[in-house]
């Protein structure tokens, strides 16, 4: 696990890693311009579909599908999984958010490859081990999975989508996301040092 791959910022990455794209990564887009683009995508989703964006919901469908394949009786008796399995007239992965998230992977890759930013590696600070960084990444993911389910969405489905719709629960959620992250940031700073 102790590979020497250690991408830093987009500007530094090229110097440290072997990669398929020989040119240096381009700088990131201006935050207001990128935000405007994201906002237009979200607006398009409202106008075309009558719903916003999402991410964590797609993984719930995936989990429900997996659980149903392993233990169908157990899964169908569980109200949480049952909601994602639907009425069994459609495959649980033939779901709007699942297709949207597949698009997110494709869009992210497209942008990354065009900007020379696709690199295999583990992003971490210079004095942290890969193992430690991956343990943090896994633990953080676990907390987010649980949190997103209690909140009925994540930064995409609640904070951004509900934020734009002035949804009360979304705004409460968003402020708590920032509060929770700032409260814990100090204790996990080592992974970037």
């Amino acid at each position, binding site marked *: 696990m102790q590979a020497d791959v250690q991408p830093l910022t987009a500007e530094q990455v090229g110097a440290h890693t072997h990669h398929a794209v020989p040119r240096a990564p381009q700088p990131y887009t201006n935050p207001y311009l990128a935000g405007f683009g994201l906002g237009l995508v979200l*607006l398009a989703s409202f106008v075309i579909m009558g719903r916003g964006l999402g991410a964590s919901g797609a993984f719930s469908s995936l989990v429900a599908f997996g659980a149903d394949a392993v233990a169908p009786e157990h899964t169908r008796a569980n109200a949480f999984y049952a909601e994602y399995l639907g009425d069994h007239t459609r495959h649980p992965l033939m779901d709007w958010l699942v297709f949207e998230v597949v698009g997110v992977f494709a869009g992210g890759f497209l942008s990354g490859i065009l900007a020379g930013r696709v690199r295999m590696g583990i992003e971490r600070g210079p004095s942290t081990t890969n193992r430690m960084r991956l343990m943090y990444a896994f*633990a953080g*993911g676990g*907390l987010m999975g649980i949190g997103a389910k209690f909140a009925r969405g994540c930064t995409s489905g609640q904070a951004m989508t509900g934020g734009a719709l002035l949804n009360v629960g979304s705004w409460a959620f968003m402020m708590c996301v920032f509060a929770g992250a700032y409260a814990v940031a100090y204790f996990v700073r080592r992974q970037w040092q």
Partner: protein
Amino acid sequence: MNAPFFKFGLFGDNVSLIVAFLIGIGFGFFLERAGFGSARKLTAQFYLTDLTVFKVMFTAIITAMLGLFYLGWMGLVDLSLVYLTPTHLVPQIVGGFLLGAGFVVGGYCPGTACVAASTGKMDALINLLGIILGIVVFGELFPWVEGFYYATPMGQVTLPQLLNLSYGLVVFLVALMAIGAFAGATWVEKRMAARKGGQPS
């Protein structure tokens, strides 16, 4: 124009999945453009050295909010047909704290982890596995946490309804607040850069 198009039956479920894929491409594209495929760029928000997350997120919120407000005002979009997730205040507050803590521990949020994984970040892939495990844990514990999950229901409710203010006024205030916060964020970044120049961390 009768929008939302899907709600007016302009196309069916199968076409909606193609639309989902295309909208997802746009979503992932701009997340990556903003630099959100990088955990360091994302978490810098919480160490106050780079407030791009805040700027991008609020620009997106303001853009979509204003766009939807004007389209609704012009009668082009029936706003009552745009889905609003019902509010369950206390579980959403708890979920927010958990997700925020998980964000800074793991380095990504769920959507940005997808973008980072698609651009080769192994830590993002592990982060996604963690998210899946978290959902399994939630799912398995659901019969025991169900009561809390449905606690403090407020129904489908917006800030204008809660505050008893007009939709337009709240839209205006949120936009105004965001512009002030953008200026504040840039000021904080400059202060932190100046501090860092004096004493490298």
